[in-house]
């Protein structure tokens, strides 16, 4: 009995170790995809580009770029699979790019492909590209891999700069949410690739963008700013910049009337980074605060107007309304939204003026 048992165990062990082996994905035997980009081609064709970083022994990185065209994404991958040296592995993908044309057709199906795959993480970044994503990924970024470079560029823009945070989870959340619309960073392509704008979505369709000078105010409205920077230039030789901005957002809703009135209260705290003008006396600082408030309020109003015109709600006002309103109806809200009275109320405080008077 015992001997048979041992024999059985040994057999299973041998069987397990040799025959039925699982598919191995040894890290240096796979082509890790670092980024992928999708562009709309003619007649509904989708052009797919992927980048595969190649780490050499002397710690240098090269980028291998592959391209394929097809009607479906999966088919693209199959086509690329025939070009690569080692099997593709999607698990460490960092960025998914879409060009404007494709994004305006809707990206839900493409996004779902990545959401469904268990090996793709939830922190994968998504972005829209002005122009062609293939162009972004085929450029030279010194000796860095294109995918990793673009990914870190967006990441630092979110962490320190003025870009709002957006990854595949946040996008999916906003997509399903009944009171919020998604947004993504928008890369502008010129001499350099820059992550400096925001793409606005209605459902999964790209409908408009926030220009560069309004991105900071947009991030303020999302209530996300934590260490951003903003500069002010009203007259020729009057120039000031604040940094280390933190914001506390409070949304207030007045529901006495038929249509609710919404006030977005933003309490901004910051320190002065650059100032071209007189000494930073308390009066001057107070004056400066006023100026910042004025500019920001104007910018916010501009953004809100644009959002209402496009009937998109990336701020999540609908979600806020839903959490207060027992009989929330998504359609009613959508109809109501463009004509709502939404007011930003901004309160800027400059806490520090640096180490120079």
């Amino acid at each position, binding site marked *: 009995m015992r001997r048979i048992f041992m024999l059985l165990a040994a057999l299973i062990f041998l069987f397990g170790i040799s025959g039925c082996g699982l598919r191995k994905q040894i890290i240096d035997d796979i082509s890790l995809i670092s980024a992928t980009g999708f562009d709309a081609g003619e007649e509904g064709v989708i052009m797919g580009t992927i980048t595969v970083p190649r780490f050499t022994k002397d710690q240098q990185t090269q980028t291998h770029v592959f391209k394929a065209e097809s009607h479906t994404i999966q088919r693209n991958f199959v086509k690329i699979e025939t070009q690569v040296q080692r099997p593709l592995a999607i698990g460490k993908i960092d960025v998914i790019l879409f060009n404007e044309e494709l994004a305006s057709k809707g990206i839900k199906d493409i996004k779902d492909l990545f959401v469904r795959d268990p090996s793709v*993480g939830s*922190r994968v970044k998504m972005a829209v590209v002005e122009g062609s994503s293939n162009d972004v990924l085929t450029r030279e970024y010194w000796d860095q891999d294109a995918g990793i470079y673009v990914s870190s560029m967006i990441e630092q823009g979110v962490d320190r700069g003025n870009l709002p945070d957006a990854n595949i989870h946040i996008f999916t959340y906003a997509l399903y949410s009944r009171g919020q619309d998604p947004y993504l960073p928008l890369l502008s392509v010129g001499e350099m690739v820059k992550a400096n704008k925001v793409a606005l979505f209605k459902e999964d369709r790209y409908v408009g963008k926030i220009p560069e000078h309004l991105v900071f105010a947009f991030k303020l409205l999302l209530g996300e700013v934590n260490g951003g920077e903003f500069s002010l230039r009203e007259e020729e030789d009057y120039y000031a910049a604040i940094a280390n901005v933190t914001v506390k957002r409070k949304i207030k809703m007045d529901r006495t009337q038929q249509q609710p009135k919404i006030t977005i209260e933003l309490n901004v705290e910051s320190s002065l980074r650059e100032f071209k003008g007189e000494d930073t006396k308390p009066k001057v600082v107070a004056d400066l605060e006023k100026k910042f408030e004025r500019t920001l309020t104007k910018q916010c109003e501009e953004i809100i107007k644009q959002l209402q015109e496009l009937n998109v709600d990336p701020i999540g006002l609908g979600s806020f309304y839903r959490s207060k309103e027992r009989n929330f109806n998504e359609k009613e809200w959508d109809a109501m939204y463009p004509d709502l009275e939404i007011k930003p109320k901004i309160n800027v405080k400059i806490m520090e003026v640096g180490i120079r008077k």
Partner: protein
Amino acid sequence: MSSSVPDRLKVSPGLVFFLVTSIQVGVGILSFQTTIVEKAGYDSWMSIIIAGISVHIIIWLIYKMLMKEHKDVLDIHVTIFGKWLSKVFGVLFVFYFILLTISVLRIYIEVIQVWMFPEINLLVITTILAILIFYIVNGGFRVVVGICFLGFVIPLYLILTLLFPLEFAHYENLTPIFTHSIKEIMNASITMTFSYIGFSTLLFYYPFIKKPEKSHKYAHFGVAFTTFLYLAVAFVTFVFYDEEQIKTVIYPTLGIWKIMEMPFVERFEYIGISSWLLVILPNMTLSTWAASRAIKRLFGLKQRIALVLILVISIIGVLFLKGYHMIDIYAQVVTYIGFGIVYGYIPLLFIIYTIVLKVRKSK
């Protein structure tokens, strides 16, 4: 075959806490959110509490019943139904525990298949896990309790992982409350009870507890902890996912882990799923132990042989179940049986037993 147990094999009453909690928390906690949200939306946190309270009541009934003569359920069967009919009811329990083991084992392997190794060989992994179960149960009840204890304590660190998704929390998801009708909430409560069952093994290990009357409160603590755990997990999932989004996710708890990023580990779900084996091990070992013990008591078969039989049946059962839908349906059938046993059979047994004892006394 009597239910008396020598003292050296007994465990202290405090350990009942772990026995109850560890068998309740299993594969259910990976996916219960989706099923209850489908019924009662984000009001379903109330269903978790309601289901928890109902389990408290059943535990109370079980203790009332068992403490009368300090016997296990098989002896109670004999008291009520006589020598032969009682065996039929005993066999029902045996079947239920085997089905439960298969269901837990299969769902866990399914999770591994979907998330980690799509091409894993079912026979090999099942046999290895079956050998593991055999090795544990072969050590006797003390070792089974030990696994329940360690299977609770070691994975406790996973609670910390609930803090990471809060970075993306939308607390406004939780209000307003009571947007669903009482009926919907009750409906979700019934679904939720599926995540609590399994504690009916208490009916079998009761004689193995030192001073069992003292263990009553620990059983309740156990249920209370499970309720708390489910609530905590539900809270985090609810603020992390949108109500519509959660319905599209099969394993929301695993989805939460996908967002975790630590300097040394970028994707936590692989570690999480692997260490989940420790969480489900108590489920499987305790129910196979109960089944093998019941077979021994019912038919006088050696428990070791009964155990081997059960494990062979389990392996065959696991091999038979293929594909997500089949497993899902199977799991639902098992939970319905469990529901019937816990909420139908046990209260009934309690009533009959009380009456029988009263009649006997008056005689």
